[in-house]
């Protein structure tokens, strides 16, 4: 069914949607354009086209932010966090979805409450505790912090996938003598993989982009993430904006490409649980 009949209304609607799209894209285009320009060119006009593509900016940014090392750190941190969230989270999501145990209500409320807790509420003792244990600059330890922070929403999202699996499958497997572990790993896991994929993407995205925890716990030049390294590079006084925009392109391009190919899963994952009705 069409909501509108008139051609004029449709044209105005598209014009407004186009303006909104322009606003969303404008700063991103500025990043792209100026990543290929020299500083004098940028000072002349941030909107002008680069006279010649200055790919050198990318090499400078790569060196300046030590991306060889810091991209590797970000990737390791990302995969460890995803692995931790998936192994611990899918187990919990399964029992929360399928087992009727009295204390589950408390667990659910506790997990929901932690998603709304400010990081500052636990950051300071956690930092000094980690410092005491020698865990500062330890990427593996930080992946546990991310796991704690990203688990609750991952569990809530995965739970909906477990709920969608017909109960009869589990009952049949149990009648055939399967153990609880077998039911989980052989019956459920193969069926909830779309949820697993969605959660991996979102947790990966959040870990790659995360700033507050990373800048607090990973300060050493050898353990920094790409985002923190970029932050430090761009915080210096001499500002070559061409290099800085090239660095910005380097950090965000992998994410943007992945998003464009898998946008449905990203959007579903990030907005999941927000639509009520």
């Amino acid at each position, binding site marked *: *069914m069409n909501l509108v009949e008139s051609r004029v209304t449709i044209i105005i609607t598209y014009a407004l949607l186009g303006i909104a799209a322009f606003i969303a894209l404008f700063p991103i285009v500025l990043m792209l354009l100026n990543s290929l320009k020299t500083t004098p060119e940028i000072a002349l006009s941030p*909107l002008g086209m680069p006279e010649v593509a200055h790919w050198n900016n990318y090499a400078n940014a790569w060196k300046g932010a030590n991306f060889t090392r810091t991209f590797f750190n970000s990737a390791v941190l990302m995969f460890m966090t995803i692995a931790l969230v998936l192994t611990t989270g899918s187990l919990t999501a399964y*029992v929360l979805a399928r087992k009727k145990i009295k204390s589950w209500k408390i667990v659910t409320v506790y997990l929901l409450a932690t998603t709304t807790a*400010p990081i500052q509420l636990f950051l300071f003792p956690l930092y000094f505790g980690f410092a005491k244990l020698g865990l500062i600059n330890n990427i593996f330890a930080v992946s*546990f912090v991310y796991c704690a922070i990203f688990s609750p929403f991952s569990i809530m999202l995965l739970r909906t996938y477990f709920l969608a699996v017909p109960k009869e499958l589990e009952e049949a497997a149990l009648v055939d003598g399967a153990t609880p572990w077998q039911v989980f790993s052989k019956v459920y896991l193969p069926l909830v993989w779309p949820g697993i994929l969605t959660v991996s993407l979102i947790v990966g995205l959040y870990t790659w982009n995360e700033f507050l925890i990373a800048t607090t716990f990973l300060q050493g030049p050898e353990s920094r993430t790409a985002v923190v390294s970029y932050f430090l590079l761009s915080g210096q006084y001499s500002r070559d904006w061409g290099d*800085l925009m090239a660095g*910005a392109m380097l950090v965000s391009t992998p994410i943007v490409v992945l998003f464009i190919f898998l946008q449905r899963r990203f959007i579903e994952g990030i907005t999941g649980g927000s639509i*009520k009705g």
Partner: protein
Amino acid sequence: MYRLFAIPTLIINVSIILLPALLTVVLAFYRWDGISNPTFIGFENFEKLWGDRIFWKALKNNVIWTALFLTFPIAIGLIAASLLMLVRRGRTFFQVVYFLPMIIATVITARIWQGMIYNPQSGIVAMLNRYGYDVRDPLSQTSTALYGVAVADLWHWWGFMAVIFFAAMRQVSQEQIESARIEGANYFQLMRWVMIPAIMPTIALMMVMTVIWSFLVFDFIFIMTQGGPAFTSEVLSTMAYRKAFYELGVGYAAATALVISLFGLTAAFFYIRLQNREDAE
């Protein structure tokens, strides 16, 4: 047996979040520089907060921030979503474009706005100056710094609202929409009397979340202004961070964190009620 399945999650969550959170509550009653032994000082940290001008400034900024984000992104999101309902082609394209700023790291977004838009040497501001418009870098002015940061945050945020509201609007029953159309409702009447009431639960949830997130806001302000100039864009979370790590006042920072949590907790109470109500249905 099944209880065991939840154990790893709970161990990690309790040791990273719950225990340190409880320690923060205790620390709020101590003076501690993070190195030597903490000294118990009762309510002194809270009394100091009460008399701290920067604390009140930060709290006021959090309230302004909440007000900004309760109105602009939700209004823009609702308008964009309702416009998307009107078109057939390009829905996916517009959604992807609106959502794109959301997935770019805050550090990157902040630097683009600082360098390419606000910067008086290299940004759009510089260009406008050359054309004779008297605009200044909002981040360097005490009266506008907070709003300068808010605009950058808003830019990356409204698309998220638009996508959520659009998804909610698509679930509104076709019959309701059709009967309203048959009775001759125009676009505005349709939105006012059918769409918005139908997606009210989603709007309510987003408003509650907005309040929570507004009291947690940290990244954009810390990266773009560090709370400056002269603390005019300071919020509670950047203030707590500065106290703990730059001024060695961990107990004072803990007390500030408790105040943030108090606002968060009130909103969280409504959040959990909304979430559970849906589960019960």
